[in-house]
């Protein structure tokens, strides 16, 4: 990569990514059972 990634702006991106990752994984953890249930329901309808 030949573009200067910056310092403060790069760290900000990393921190934002870490916070979002935590939220994303938590959301997946919470909603995973419902997602499975819905797909099972959809299969039943078929």
């Amino acid at each position, binding site marked *: *990569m*030949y*573009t*200067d*990634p*910056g*310092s*403060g*702006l*790069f*760290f*900000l*991106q*990393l*921190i*934002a*990514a870490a916070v*979002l*990752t935590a939220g*994303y*994984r938590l959301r997946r953890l919470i909603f995973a059972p419902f997602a499975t249930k819905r797909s099972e329901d959809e299969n039943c309808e078929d």
Partner: protein
Amino acid sequence: MRGLAEPLSFRDPDGYLFKTGNRILRYVLPHAGAAVRAFLDSRLAVSWMNQGKLVHSTILENPSEFELPPECAGRLPPGALIVEHTPISFRNYPYEWAPEMLRSAAELTLELAREAMRAGFTLKDATPYNLIFDGCRPVFVDLLSFCRRDPREPVWQPYAQFVRTFTLPLLAFRYFGLRPDEILLPHRDGIEPEKLWALCPAYRLLFPPFLSSVTMPVLLARARRGASAGTYRARHARDEDEAAFLLESLFARAGRQLRRAGRTRRGSAALQYADSGHPYAAVELAEKERFVASALERFSPRSVLDVGCNTGHFSWLAARTGARVVAIDRDEAVIGALWRSASQASLGILPLVVDIGRPPGACGWRNNECAAFLDRARGSFDCVLMLALMHHLLVNERVPLAAILQLAAELTTRWAILEYIDPKDANFQHIARGRDALHRDVTPESFERAAGGWFQIVDAAGISPTRRIYLLRKKEA
């Protein structure tokens, strides 16, 4: 005979642009050839080219010796490519754009980055120099900026460059009145958050939009001053969905920052002046319009340069006759307004912030990356308009009458429509502020004598007691 290949770029490690005659060609080095071909063959690239978002690019399957750069010594290495790009009519640079145009270029950059990410590609740099305005539309021209993406890469490396070159210059304009040219002309890679921090009152640093674009990056940079090269190592998300989610969030955040930074400044004095401050009575303006419209219809110029265009009233007239128009003015507010109106009407007008009294010179590495405005303009227009401009150059720039006419002759290959403004004119006197003695040699006779050095007077009409308009034909060399 082979045209001299002139390299036009050098920073990208995957290839460079060069010019052969009037053709714009790109040499793609062997290591990048397959990736560029895959991108150009993708539905994404084809769709962008069809929509005019990406410059039209064609791979020359069997380039002749004349289509190769000198380093190939007449033979294309295996894996390398020659790509031909459709030339854009008038090359322009980010430091000549109004803030609205910079924002539009930023929006297109983000849009393409987001779509590329969804299609498995990434935009590897995000600078306004990747785009050129073709008329009112920004077109992405740097083909090599797109490459395959690591599907688990959760970071967009050019984010900082995007902020430095788009978001922060727009913030600096909105809050501190710094025009894009004041930032982008001396700083190729934009403005660092630290510079805006220094300009910003303390209370502003605590609130959006400065909090996320300036304050936090500056504090983080200070805190991580000792960061090692390992900080910048490639990172991976747990899976592709997670990486896509993070990048979508980043693009959304960059878009929000851009929207906040790019809001138009209200109450521009220059625009109010342009709307109501012109000195013509209705009948005088009608006569001026009639004269210009009649000249344009009679000679149908293909390309028109409107110097000192103001809000572009006469640029519109020229564009409606089918001419490609480049309209320049030193006031970014009127250029922004013209860009908005011409974009809505899809007219072939390219408005640029250029002060003809101090036009941008050649700049960049060895003064060879960005051509001087006048060098680009010479030979590009068969008609030049200089309406209600002469007195500004005479008084504010102290340019002699003959030099103004010489410039008009340099800028056109055929026609010029010039407005003579007498020193007795109220606007002339307003800006002269009592310095009448300096302009006592400016008379209709001296104007016509000076014009005679380069032009033949084809037609002339009085539009008011102190203003006269001329249609001039350039004398053969």
